């Protein structure tokens, strides 16, 4: 997947604002995500993180601003076009195709990279058969990669929670994305599962060369794998930088723990 790069950043958002009626969910947000990095967006509940994801994937139309994928504007495009261009995602509350098998779920993920149409399927042309077989093979490999070998034919709804999380990632990977958006991938996991998932995400970048944009609540996860962190509060960016910089930022502490904690911190530093 060593494609030619057109821009220094795989993803760039330029003064993105999203408004629902009077409510400003995301306000004037600009971030720059370098190629093959792990970039995290954190913030308290309701800070607008998921809304921001929905803007990037085209599920919401941005009110103002622009979004560039490798230098090309994708703002205002339909979700199915955006995934074709190379962004795919997972959901905070797992949203698998419950009554399809694990294998089918991943094969659906490969949909945008396939061509077969109605007639090809009915006539069962050699091209269709080849494509189908290749997709199946790819899906099997992805399932093995995320550690779901052996449950390919189970219905998604019957899989345990942790497996469903990984299946969702496999499905997202099947569209061969350049940029993967993970929305709280460790939510509801116990510490050892979380550790496993953290290693897995790190591995994604190393083995597949995929850039990861991450929303996460678990600070240990964020601090251990992120290259850059952006902190949102009330839809606005209040801090940005390397993990250690963000950790020490009084505005971040204030947003997370309240004003008192921030003054204490400052007093200690002084």
């Amino acid at each position, binding site marked *: 997947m060593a494609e030619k790069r057109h821009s220094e950043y795989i993803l760039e958002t330029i003064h993105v604002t999203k408004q629902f009626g009077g409510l400003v969910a995301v306000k004037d947000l600009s971030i720059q995500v370098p190629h093959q990095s792990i970039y995290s967006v954190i913030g308290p509940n309701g800070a607008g993180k998921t809304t921001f994801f929905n803007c990037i994937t085209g599920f919401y139309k941005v009110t103002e601003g622009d979004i560039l994928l490798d230098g090309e504007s994708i703002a205002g495009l339909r979700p*199915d076009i955006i995934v074709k261009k190379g962004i795919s995602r997972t959901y905070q509350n797992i949203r*698998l195709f419950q009554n399809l098998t694990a294998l089918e779920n991943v094969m*659906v993920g490969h*949909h945008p990279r396939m061509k077969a149409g109605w007639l090809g399927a009915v006539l*069962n042309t050699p091209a269709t058969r080849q494509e189908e077989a290749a997709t199946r093979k790819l899906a099997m490999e992805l399932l093995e990669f995320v550690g779901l070998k052996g449950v390919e*034919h189970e219905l998604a709804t019957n899989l345990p929670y942790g497996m469903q999380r990984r299946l969702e990632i496999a499905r997202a990977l099947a*569209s061969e994305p350049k940029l993967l958006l993970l929305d709280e991938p460790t939510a509801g996991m116990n510490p050892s599962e979380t550790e496993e998932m953290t290693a897995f995400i790190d591995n994604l970048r190393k083995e597949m060369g995929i850039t990861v944009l991450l929303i996460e609540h678990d600070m240990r996860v964020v601090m251990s794998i992120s290259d850059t962190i952006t902190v949102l509060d009330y839809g606005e960016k209040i801090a940005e930088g390397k993990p250690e910089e963000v950790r020490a930022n009084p505005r971040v502490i204030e947003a997370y723990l309240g004003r008192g904690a921030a003054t204490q911190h400052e007093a200690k530093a002084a």
Partner: protein
Amino acid sequence: MDKEIKFSWQDIIKYGVIGGIVALYVVLIGMVVTFKERYIIAETVNLGQIALFSPTFILAYFAANNARKLKSLIYAIVVGALVGAIVGVFVAALLVLASHVNMREVFLNVSPELLKILHFGQESLKGASLVIVGLNLIVGLVGGLFALAPRRWSNALLVGAALVTLMGILQELMSITFGTKDWYKPLGEFIYAKKGLSWGGTILFFVLGMLFSLWRSSPGLHPGARVAKLPPKQQQGVRIVSFLLGLAILVWLPKFLGSYPSEILTTVGIYVIMGLGLNIVVGFAGLLDLGYVAFFAIGAYTVGILTTTGKLATVGWNFWMALPVAIFLATMAGVILGIPVLKMRGDYLAIVTLGFGEIIRILVLSDWLKPYIGGAQGILQIPKPEILGYEFKGPQQIYYLVLIGILLVGYIAWRLRDARVGRAWKAMREDEDVAEAMGIHLVSTKLMAFATGAAFAGLSGAIFAAKLGSIFPHSFNLIVSINVLSLIIVGGIGSLPGVVVGALILVGLPELLREFADYRMLFYGALLVAMMLVKPEGFVPEKTHARELREQPLEPEVAPEAPAREAL
């Protein structure tokens, strides 16, 4: 233990009362009298009696099943018998009441004939009441015992009984069939008495049904499992051979059955084609379409207008020229309906499509279009299709047209199901937003589902017009849409073989039982409610099919029945 048994008194009374009310209902709507001439077993059991006693049996079974945890033979018998007796008391109470009050003023069906049947040959009211309670008690007892039998055996017994009932219902038809050719006359005489099955036939079919069921459920003998063990080449061979064998039987069937049964099969087949189409829209893509009959009507009327030689004659094409036009127009109608409803989901979609179906029906009836399509008088004199001098003139010939239609449409549906398009439909059914985020273009995918379904209905309508030779608006009522939807649900939503099974049960069975006409809607309603409660996945669910398609079974897989049994 004591406490549990005491506690279940409530249950016994509850099940008994429910059974009693259902039994009274069956009696009061007149089923017992209507079906009394339908002998299943000659001179012994008729369909009316089956209708009378099946509530007892079913409720005794459920009551005993609930008590199953106790695993006590005596307990099951007692529970079953008590439930049966309570049901009996209800029916006996009706007898007592009817002898004192003139019930016919309110309940028309409480005729002297009914009372005579319910007396079971007894002179006195007391004797009759005792017999009714006693018979119900015995039936309930059997129901209780049945609940204790291992699942595999009780299933086998059920299949045996169902086969006997079915063959008994078929007696009138089959006697004609057997009478036509010399060489199977003796067989017919062995199986059937003057009315219903002979004892020999009863035992034969009961045993056949049981053996078949046991063979299917036996882990060592199960045909699917055994085929799956063969190497792929041989598996394919087995599939081809069994397909050809099935096809040969289907081709031979109308010759064997004769005219009337072929007519019924043709009607069933027309519904199968429609069912396969609606299954794509509802079953695969999850778009609830209640106006499906519109596309059927468009197909039928297109063929009618283009081919009729009657008053309304236009271009006078033959069937084969009109057929593609009919399918094309139906497909276009599918797309045109699809566009405005693209943004709608669930209930809203159902209501709009319902309206669309009504619009087409009202258009067909309208004065405005009357000069072209005949209004309420319909289109007459639609010629029969003909190919190379072979005329599809009667039901036995049209049957082949339907068969070809089913094979074609079934093949297309089967291909699409496991292809990229089919996966996109299913993904959309599961979660539209996520499907879009996975790169599925919702507009084109939805329209493709609507168009494909409509095309199948168009084909079905075209064949329907050719079969009848004349078409009238009343053939295109809302009820057709409901029938097609019901048969999909009964068969198993999303399942291809399910469509065939559903059509045989919901379309074929009522055609066989002419007395049934009055109870048709009741039967539909009861069956649908029962299906939703007991077997919501349908008779031939899609998932089992998917399991059969597995290349290799999973090691940690638990036998699917085991947990279900625990749950009971």
